[in-house]
C-alpha cells in the first residue's frame, strides 16, 4: 500500500469509530468519554496531531489539514449530541434554550409626580363616596377669594392670608379697590387665589343642593419659603350641602377618608375650636396615626356660614352643610416621608424617579 494512503485510511477508520461511539452514547457521561477518547489530552486524534511534528513538510500539510478538518467534524457532532441530551433533559429544543436567570432588558418607564399620585388616591376615595370633582381658576377675583366668603375689605381676617395681587394693565392702580360699590363688578381686581374655598362659591352659583364636591387646586401665598412653606401649594376643598348635613357628618366623612387614605382602621380624628370667616362653628382637624404618633394638624373645617349661603342665594334655614380644606403637600409629605416641600416644584428627576 502506498504510504500516503495509509494515514488517510487511519483518519477514515478513526472517523468511523468516533461516529459510532457517539451514536451509541446514551447519556452525557458517554458523550464526554468519546470527547475525551478522541479529542482529549491523550485522545486518538490529538496524538495524531502531535505526531505531525515528525513528518516531512509536504506530508505534514496534507495530514494537518485533514486532521484539523476531522477535528472540527467530530467537535460538531459532539455538540449536536450534547444538544440532544439537553433537549431530553429540559424537553425544550436547544436552539431556543435560554438562561432565565439573566436580568431582563430594562423597559423605559416614566414616573408620576408624587402630588399627582396623592391627588389620584384622594379623589378616588371621595368619588367612591359620590363627590364630584370641580376645578376653577388660579387667577381669581377678590370677590370670590374674599368677599363672597365673608371676608370684606379691611377685615382683619384678611391678615390670615398674604396675597399676590396681579398688576392691572394700563392704569398703575394696585389690585385692591377703594370703593365698596366697585366690588360688585365681580371680574375686576385680580389676585392669585390663596385657598381653594372660592370654588365653593363658584360651584354653588351654578348647581343646586343637595351637593357634594371636592375641589383640588394650586394656591398661592406671599410667604417666606422654607422646608414646610412655599409660595405655591396644593389644597383640596370639600363641600357637602343638604337639608340635614351636620358637624357629626363632617367627622364621619373625614374619618372614613383619612382611614382609607392612610390604610389604617385605627386612625383617630379630632376637632379643636378655630376660626375661619366662612364657617361657623369653625374647627381645626387633627389626626393620630397610631398610639405611638403625635396628633397632627391636617385640615381646617366647619359648618358653612349663613352669609356664604346667602351670597349664593341659598336659604340658610333650609340648607346647611360642611366645608373642609386640606393641604395635599402636607399629606404627601407625611405619606411618602418627604422632608422638604420645595422638592415638589424643583423638577429634579433624582427626586421624582423615586415614585
Amino acid at each position: 500500500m502506498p504510504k500516503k494512503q495509509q494515514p488517510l485510511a487511519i483518519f477514515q477508520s478513526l472517523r468511523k469509530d468516533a461516529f459510532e461511539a457517539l451514536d451509541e452514547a446514551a447519556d452525557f457521561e458517554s458523550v464526554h468519554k468519546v470527547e475525551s477518547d478522541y479529542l482529549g489530552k491523550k485522545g486518538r486524534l490529538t496524538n495524531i496531531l502531535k505526531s505531525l511534528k515528525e513528518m516531512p513538510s509536504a506530508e505534514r500539510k496534507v495530514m494537518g489539514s485533514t486532521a484539523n478538518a476531522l477535528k472540527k467534524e467530530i467537535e460538531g457532532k459532539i455538540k449536536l449530541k450534547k444538544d440532544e441530551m439537553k433537549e431530553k433533559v429540559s424537553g425544550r429544543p436547544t436552539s431556543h434554550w435560554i438562561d432565565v436567570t439573566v436580568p431582563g432588558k430594562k423597559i423605559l418607564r416614566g414616573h408620576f409626580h408624587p402630588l399627582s399620585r396623592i391627588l389620584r388616591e384622594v379623589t378616588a376615595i371621595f368619588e367612591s363616596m359620590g363627590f364630584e370633582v370641580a376645578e376653577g381658576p388660579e387667577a381669581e377675583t377678590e370677590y370670590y377669594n374674599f368677599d363672597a366668603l365673608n371676608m370684606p375689605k379691611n377685615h382683619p381676617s384678611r391678615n390670615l392670608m398674604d396675597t399676590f395681587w396681579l398688576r392691572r394693565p394700563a392704569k398703575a392702580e394696585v389690585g385692591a379697590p377703594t370703593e365698596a360699590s366697585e366690588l360688585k363688578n365681580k371680574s375686576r381686581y385680580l389676585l392669585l387665589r390663596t385657598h381653594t374655598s372660592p370654588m365653593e362659591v363658584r360651584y354653588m352659583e351654578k348647581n343646586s343642593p343637595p351637593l357634594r364636591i371636592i375641589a383640588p387646586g394650586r394656591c398661592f401665598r406671599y410667604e417666606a419659603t422654607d422646608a414646610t412653606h412655599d409660595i405655591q401649594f396644593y389644597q383640596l376643598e370639600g363641600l357637602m350641602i343638604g337639608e340635614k348635613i351636620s358637624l357629626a357628618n363632617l367627622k364621619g366623612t373625614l374619618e372614613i377618608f383619612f382611614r382609607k387614605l392612610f390604610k389604617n382602621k385605627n386612625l383617630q380624628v379630632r376637632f379643636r375650636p378655630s376660626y375661619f370667616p366662612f364657617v361657623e362653628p369653625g374647627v381645626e382637624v387633627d389626626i393620630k396615626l397610631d398610639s405611638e404618633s403625635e396628633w397632627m394638624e391636617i385640615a381646617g373645617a366647619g359648618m358653612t356660614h349663613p352669609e356664604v349661603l346667602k351670597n349664593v342665594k341659598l336659604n340658610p334655614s333650609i340648607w346647611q352643610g360642611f366645608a373642609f380644606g386640606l393641604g395635599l403637600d402636607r399629606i404627601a409629605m407625611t405619606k411618602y416621608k418627604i422632608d422638604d416641600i420645595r422638592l415638589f416644584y424643583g423638577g429634579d428627576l433624582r427626586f421624582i424617579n423615586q415614585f
Partner: protein
Amino acid sequence: MHSFETKKGKVIALPSGTPDTILDIDVTPNRSHDCFSHLGIAKEISALFSLPLKKSEKLRRPAKAGIGVPTEASGEKADAYLKLDVQEPELCRRYIAGIMLDIKVGPSPIWLRERLIAVGQKPINNIVDAANYVMLEMGQPLHAFDMDKIKPVKIIVRRAQKGEKITTLDNKNYELDESMLLIADSKMPLAIAGIKGGKKAEIDKKTKNIIIEAANFEPANIRSTSQKLGLATGASAGFENGISPNIAPLAMRRVIDLIWEIAGGKVVSEWIDFYPKKVAPSRISFKVEDVRKLLGVDVSKKEIISILNRLGIKAKKGKEGTIIADCPLERLDLEIKEDIIEEIARIYGYGKIPATLPEGILIPAKRNDGYFYGNIIRDILVGAGFSEVYNYSLGPTGEIEIENPIALDKKYLRANLLEGLKNNVRNNFKYFDEVRIFEIGKIFRKSEKGVEEKNALAGIAAHKIPKKSSDELTEIKGVVEMLLSKLGISDFWFDDVKEGTGLPKIADIKIGDDIIGILDLNAFEIDLDKLINLINEEVEYRPISKYPAVIRDIAILVPFETKMTEVLDIIENTGGELLVDTDLFDIYEGEDLGESRKSFAFHLIFQSAERTLSDKEVNSLMEKIIKAIESKPEWEVRK
C-alpha cells in the same frame, strides 16, 4: 380643646423674686375684642372650669384704710374743664374724657412694674403705666394727656389734613393724610387716634392735671391708617379687630381708681361721654332643635342653658321652645344663632360629637372631563417613558405681571410650560444623559377681559449628546402621534413653519385649520382645553353601526418625499362615507424599492350604518380608489 391654642407656659422670676408663668395664647381674630385681655381670658377659664370670677370690687383696692371712693375735686363736672368736639362720629363712636387734678407723677409701685415687665411692656411712670395696665387687664386702650399742655383746653376728634405732621411719644415723625383720624387741640395734633400718642401733651414729671381718654374707633379706618403708616401698636391691634363701646366706661372707672391709688389726686365727677349711637349687647333667640340639627348630637336644653350661663351669656327659656341668649357686652362675635351654637359645641366638647355618615340620596358623581383625561394622558406618557414634573407658576417672563412679587425672578405668571421644562432639562443634565419629562399645568396670557387662563400640556425628550435632528424630531413626533391616536384623535397633521421666522417651533399641530399645539425639535406643547373638547367631539360623532365592517388592505408606492397625508387625502376623498376609517400600518423604505421610492400600506375599513355591505360594493369602491391613486403619474398600487 375648648378655647385657644396655648403654648406651654414659660416660668419666669419677677424682679421681686416672685415666680410666675407666662402663657402664650393664640387668640383667634373673632375673639380678640374680648380675649386680648386678662379679664377676657379669666372669663374663658371660669367658663371652662366652672370657677367663679372674682367680683370687680374685690380687685385691687386702695391700700389706705377708710378710703372707699375717690374724693371729688369740686362740684364741677368735667365739661367745665374741657370742651370736646367729635367731628367724625362714624369713625369715633364713643369718646369718654375723665379728668384728674393734682396728681403726683412718679415711678409705679413694684407690683405694677413687675406685671408690665412680665408681659414685655416697659414701665414709664405711674400714669402711663396705669393706663397700659388697665388696657392689658380689660382690653380697652386708654390714653392720658397732660391737660396743662393743651391751651385752650379743647379736644377735637377730626380727620388730618393732607401733609399734616405729628411727632409721636417715641420721637418719630409721621406725615398724615385726610383718611386718618386725629385727636387734636385747636392748634395741632395730640395723638394718632387709636394708635399712638403725640409728644405735645406728653405726661412728664411735672404733670399735675390729666385728661384720660377711653374711646372707641371704627376698625377698618384704624387698620387702614396703621397699614399706611406702617405703625402697629397694642392699641391699634385692639381697635382693628373691633372692641365693644360698652367697655370704655368700665375701663375708665378702673383706671381712675388705680391712678388715685398710686398717684393720688382728685377726681372730677361726671366724665364727658360722647356716645350718640348706643350699641346694645346682642340678644339671640334659637331653638334646641337648631343646635341638634347643626351639630348632629343631642344636647339637652338643661345643658345648653348651663353652658351659656357659665360663659356669662344669660340664657332663659322663651316662647314656643326657644331659648333667648343675652350676650355679654364685650362679645362682638356673637351675632347669629350659629355663633351661639359654636359656643355650646366647644364647651360641650368636640370630642363628644360622634362620627356619623350623612344620609341622603346618593347621586352618582358627574365625571370631570379635564381631570379624567388629564389622568389618561399621564398614564400614556408615563408608559412611554416620560416623568412628570411640576414647575412654579411664577417666573422671570410672561404676559401677566405681579403687583407685589416676592422675588425678582418671580415677577410674571408663566405664559407657556416649555420654558420651565427646558430649565428642568438643563438642571437634570448634571445627573442624567437623557431627560424625558412632561408637565400638565396652567398658563396665563393677556386677553381683552384681562387674564386668560388655560390648561396646557408640554413634553421634552432631550439627549445630552444631541442626536441627528431628524432622529430627535422623529422621536418626539412619534410621541405626539401616539398620544393623539390613543386619545382617539385621528385627523391631526403637522404644518411646517417657514424657516427663518424666528419662532421657537418647527411645526404647528393642527386639526383642520385649528392650531392645537406646536412641535419643536425635541419638544411639544399642546392646548389641553382644545384637546379635551376634541376628544369629546370625536367620541360623540362616531355612531356605532350594528352592521359588520369589511377590511381591505392597500399598499402604494410613491416617490420618497411624498407626504402620507397627500395619499390619505386621495383615498378618503374617493372612498367617501362608506370608508369609515383608514389606518396606516406600514411605511417601507427597503432597498428593493429603489432609492427614491417608499411604500405606504393602509387598512381600509368599510362600513355602513344601514346595511351589510356586499363584496361587490366594496370591490367597486376599491377599484375607484386604485384608479384615483394610479391617476397620479408617479404613484403605483402594489399588487
